Each structure stands twice: as structure tokens, then as C-alpha cells.
């Protein structure tokens, strides 16, 4: 699932679905069918591959790729949505599976999937927004759970979720920008998890995407649902889905 979703995202970014069709007849449908076959018919969630590990990360990945290809109808969206609801906690957040503790990364996947499904009305937006806003620490950085350390990748998981709930103004964006910029390696380039640490591609992506959500000058606008340039998702999704995504937002 993970490589497949990345593959679809790259094809979307390169606007290459037509070329895929030329090279592999029915290629897009085949990809969609592969993803759809990973949905658990009983619970509605998705496995990562034939070995069956289930996690809301895979559910989000499925929704992400299928919606980019316009093939969401291949799966039982309502059942998947019910599964996400079963992962919800009293604090408005979501865990990896039912009964699991709320975790910012998992919240991104669940809120992202619900946004794609046009069902943000099911989110306890005030509670979740409050919980997410409490991830910001005095140094401006964001953590992923209560009483944990800050980490640049949560700039993305937390902020994208706040953006989907239209509550980005519930944290201090300037302080967060400052924190993210401190995580940069001023000589070699790239971003690390925390100031002074070793940089890597993973943290660099989420630092840049986070800065884009904060309207940092010179960056392309990022789509908080897909973690891709908005110009790309707009092109793929067209008007209907974009309209669907707006509902439920306050």
C-alpha cells in the first residue's frame, strides 16, 4: 500500500495518468482494484499488504490514492468511516486502532480520510482543535502527544489537522516558523527533528510543508489533506471533490 500510494502521488504530481494508460492499458483501474482488495470487508479498514497489518495509516493511504485517481467508489467509504469513528477518543483525537491512545500522526490520517470522505461533521472539532493546539510548547515546536518532546514532523501532522478543521489560528504560527527554521542545517541544507540534530529527507519534507501552511514566503501552497502542492490536487480532484471537502468545516 505505501509504495503504491507514493507511486500514485508521483504520477499525480507529474500529471502522468494518461501516460500510464498508454503504457499499461487499464493501469489506473488495476491500481485502484489492488488498493480496494486490501479493504477488510468486515471492519472497513485497510491492510498494508497481503500480510494483513492494519492501521489507520493504510486507510488514509487508500483514500488518498483512490481519490487522486477518481476511484473512491471502488471501496465501501461508509464502512471505513465507521471504522475511523471507532478509533475516536474522549479528547476528540484518534489512535492507530480502536482503544489506542490519541496520537497526532494518526489524527492526521483519520481527519484526512474523513475530509476526503466529506465527513468532517463527525469530528468533535472543538475538542480535537483544543487538544491539537496544546501540542505547541513554549519553544514554539509541536509534540505528538501530551508531555512528549517537540519534533519538526509534528509541525505537519498537527498543523495539517488544524488546517483541515480551520483552526490554524489556535496556535502561534510565528513561533512555530521560528522553531522550524532553527531545525535547519545552515551549511549542508535540510531540516532535522530538533535544532542541532542530523537532517534527513523525512523531516525536510514536513518542515517545508509546515512552513507552506504557515504561508512562509517563496513556497508553493500545500494541500493539508494530501501533503502535496495544491496546484496538483486541484487539477486531480476537480471541483466536485473540492466542494465536498469544504463541508463540515467551521
Amino acid at each position, binding site marked *: 500500500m505505501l509504495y503504491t500510494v507514493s507511486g500514485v502521488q508521483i504520477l499525480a504530481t507529474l500529471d502522468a495518468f494518461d501516460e500510464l494508460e498508454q503504457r499499461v492499458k487499464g493501469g489506473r483501474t488495476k491500481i485502484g482494484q489492488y488498493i480496494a482488495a486490501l479493504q477488510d470487508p468486515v471492519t472497513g479498514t485497510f491492510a498494508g499488504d497481503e500480510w494483513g497489518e492494519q492501521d489507520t495509516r493504510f486507510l488514509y493511504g487508500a483514500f488518498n490514492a483512490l481519490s487522486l485517481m477518481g476511484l473512491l467508489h471502488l471501496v465501501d467509504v461508509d464502512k471505513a468511516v465507521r471504522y475511523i469513528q471507532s478509533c475516536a477518543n474522549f479528547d476528540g483525537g484518534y489512535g492507530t486502532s480502536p482503544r489506542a491512545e490519541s496520537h497526532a500522526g494518526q489524527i492526521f490520517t483519520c481527519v484526512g480520510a474523513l475530509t476526503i470522505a466529506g465527513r468532517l461533521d463527525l469530528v468533535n472539532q472543538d475538542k480535537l482543535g483544543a487538544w491539537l493546539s496544546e501540542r505547541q510548547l513554549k519553544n514554539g515546536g509541536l509534540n505528538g502527544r501530551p508531555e512528549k518532546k517537540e519534533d519538526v*514532523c509534528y509541525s505537519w501532522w498537527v498543523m495539517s489537522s488544524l488546517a483541515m478543521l480551520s483552526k490554524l489560528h489556535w496556535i502561534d504560527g510565528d513561533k512555530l516558523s521560528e522553531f522550524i527554521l532553527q531545525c535547519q542545517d545552515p551549511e549542508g541544507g535540510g531540516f532535522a527533528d530538533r535544532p*542541532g540534530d542530523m537532517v534527513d529527507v523525512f523531516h525536510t519534507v514536513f518542515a517545508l510543508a509546515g512552513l507552506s501552511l504557515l504561508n512562509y514566503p517563496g513556497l508553493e501552497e500545500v494541500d493539508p489533506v494530501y501533503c502535496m502542492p495544491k496546484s496538483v490536487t486541484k487539477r486531480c480532484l476537480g471541483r466536485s471533490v473540492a466542494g465536498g471537502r469544504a463541508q463540515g468545516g467551521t
Partner: protein
Amino acid sequence: MASHGVSRAAGTIVRSEESRKRELQQIAAYQELVDLVNTKERQYTIEVLGLTTKLLNENPEYYTVWNHRRRVLLALSNPPMEDQDQTERLTHNIEELVNDELHLTFGLLRKFPKCYWIWNHRSWVLQQAEKLLSAATAKKIWSGELLLVGKMLQADSRNFHAWSYRRSVVLELERMSTPTSDSAASDPPLPQSLVESEFEYTTKMIKTNLSNFSAWHNRGKLIPPLLAERQADNAARRRMLDDELALICTAINTDPFDQSIWYYHRFLLSTLIPSCPDQSKIAVDLSNSDRAQYYTHEMEYIGEILEDETDCKWIYEALLYLAECSLEVDAGTGAFTTQDMRSWLVQLRRLDPLRMGRWSDLGRALNI
């Protein structure tokens, strides 16, 4: 791989030519190993198993290799059978294979406790063991898992992979101990449900560290099934609620600046509200005047802490939340005034400027 907590200074120290060469050799050796494993993608032999062990020790995030390894394991545990002797030898071999996998994943989990694929592989191995080995052997292996996960949580009491794994092991052990018509009488009976001992475990973890929200979270999830299993009547349910509130209030008094503690307090309060789903309730027979009493009691207690801690924003947030809840069930408790609510909001703005936008929205929502 993403790197966490690795200091950049260590990497930028000017390396000697010798250490640079050594590093290049290591990279070349790794690449060679990756190529070798990938050319043997369709070979399911002990040799390939060994190669994947080597590669996964270097890079446990390479999930394709875990999949390759599982194919090899399935092939090795399912060769064509000819006679009874062979079957017995095979059972022995499978036990060995299972033990080797548990050993490998344990070692890797100590080094990479947050790697999804290792936890996943371990679960898969245990499920296979249950399919391929006798019920008694499988049960013995599963029981050992609680010890393992206990060790992992000792090393990092907030590891959410370990907590999830713990819940799944408990489910599995409970499922296995459900008596079936053909279960052997000689088996030592496992307790039907582990909910009491798991609840005790969270008590132990919280006593070690009040700030462990993962333990508080699990505790909250265990209360409804615990009450159901005890067949608690209304009075016993209220006692549970009172005991938990007393426990968390003592914790608040100990450290009013700790988020974890406040979240559990908020969780308990969330079970009081009229719209709380039945399966999440602790006390089930509350009238609105009971609720108002609880809210007033909490406000008084927190108000006392406020006298010593005027700069703790969590206190004001809790007071505002309790006020909101009170207004929902009974407008006239007299425990607070709109003026009080306004002053708490002023304090929140003063103490917590990072979330200024939120406090503005809250003021508007409460119309104060």
C-alpha cells in the same frame, strides 16, 4: 530512514580519511547485501533466511524484506510431507523457527522500539505459531509476550506500539482461555479475563510516573469492561467514579502543571455529561442535580489549588470547562458568576498567549 535525536555535531566532525573509507566500505557492503537478497527474491531457503536476518539487523525499516522473510518462513514450515517421522521432525523445526523469530524481533525491538514492522512481524509469527503448533505450546508462547511487553514499557513507558501490542496480547490470551468443548482438562486454566490485572498494571505504572498519559488512557479504557465484569451495581459504579476522581485530584494537587493528569480528569468529567454513550459511562444513574453536585465539588477543589497556584493555566481552563458543564445541566448552582468566567478567560489570555486565537473563539462561543 528518518533520524531522531541524532546530534548533527557528531556527523560534521572532520573525519579522517581512514574513517571515511571505512564508512564507504560499509555502504558498499550494505548495497551488496541488498542486491543479493533481491536477486534471491524467489528462493525460499535457510540461506536466504540468514541473509534477510543480516539485512534486517542493518535496516529493519525495509519492509519488503520482512515480506520476503515471511515467504521463506512459510515455505520452510510447510514442505511436502511423506511420513509420520518427518511430521514430528517438522513440528520440532517449526518450534525452533518460531523461537528464532521471537529472539530476532526481541533484539531488534530493544534497538528500534518504534519500528512498526518489527512489532508487526512478531504478531504475525505468533499467529502462525498458533496455527501450526499445539494449543498448549502456543498458549505458553503467548503468555511470554506479556513479560516482553512489560520490559518494553519499562524501557519507555509511553511507547504506543508497546501499549497497542499489550492490548492485543491480552485479547489473545483471553480468547485462548475461553473454554471450548474439546479443551484438554490437563491444561492449567488461565484466568478468563485479564481486565482486573491489567487495571492493576495501570495503577502500578501511574504510581511510578504520574505523567504517564498512556497508562491513564489505558486505565480509562479498562474501566467500563471492569465494571461490567464485576457486575457492579449503581452504588459500586458511583464508588468507582468517586475513587478515580479522588485519585486524579490528588495527582492534580501534586503537579498542577502536568497535561497528562488534566486529560484524565477531563476524561472522567466526560463520562458525566448527559450525552456520554452508555458503554462509556462509569456512573449510570446520575440526575442533573447529581451532575451539578459533582461539578461544584470539582470547582471547589480546584479553586483551593488556585489559591497556591495563580499562574497555572490548566486550573482556569478546568474551571471554565466545569462552568460550561454546569450551565448545561443547571443554570443556578450559584457556584460561579459570569464575571468569574470572564476573569478566568482573562487569566488564560495572560498565561497562554500561544493559543490566543483559541481563547478569543472560546470567549465568543461562551458569549462572555
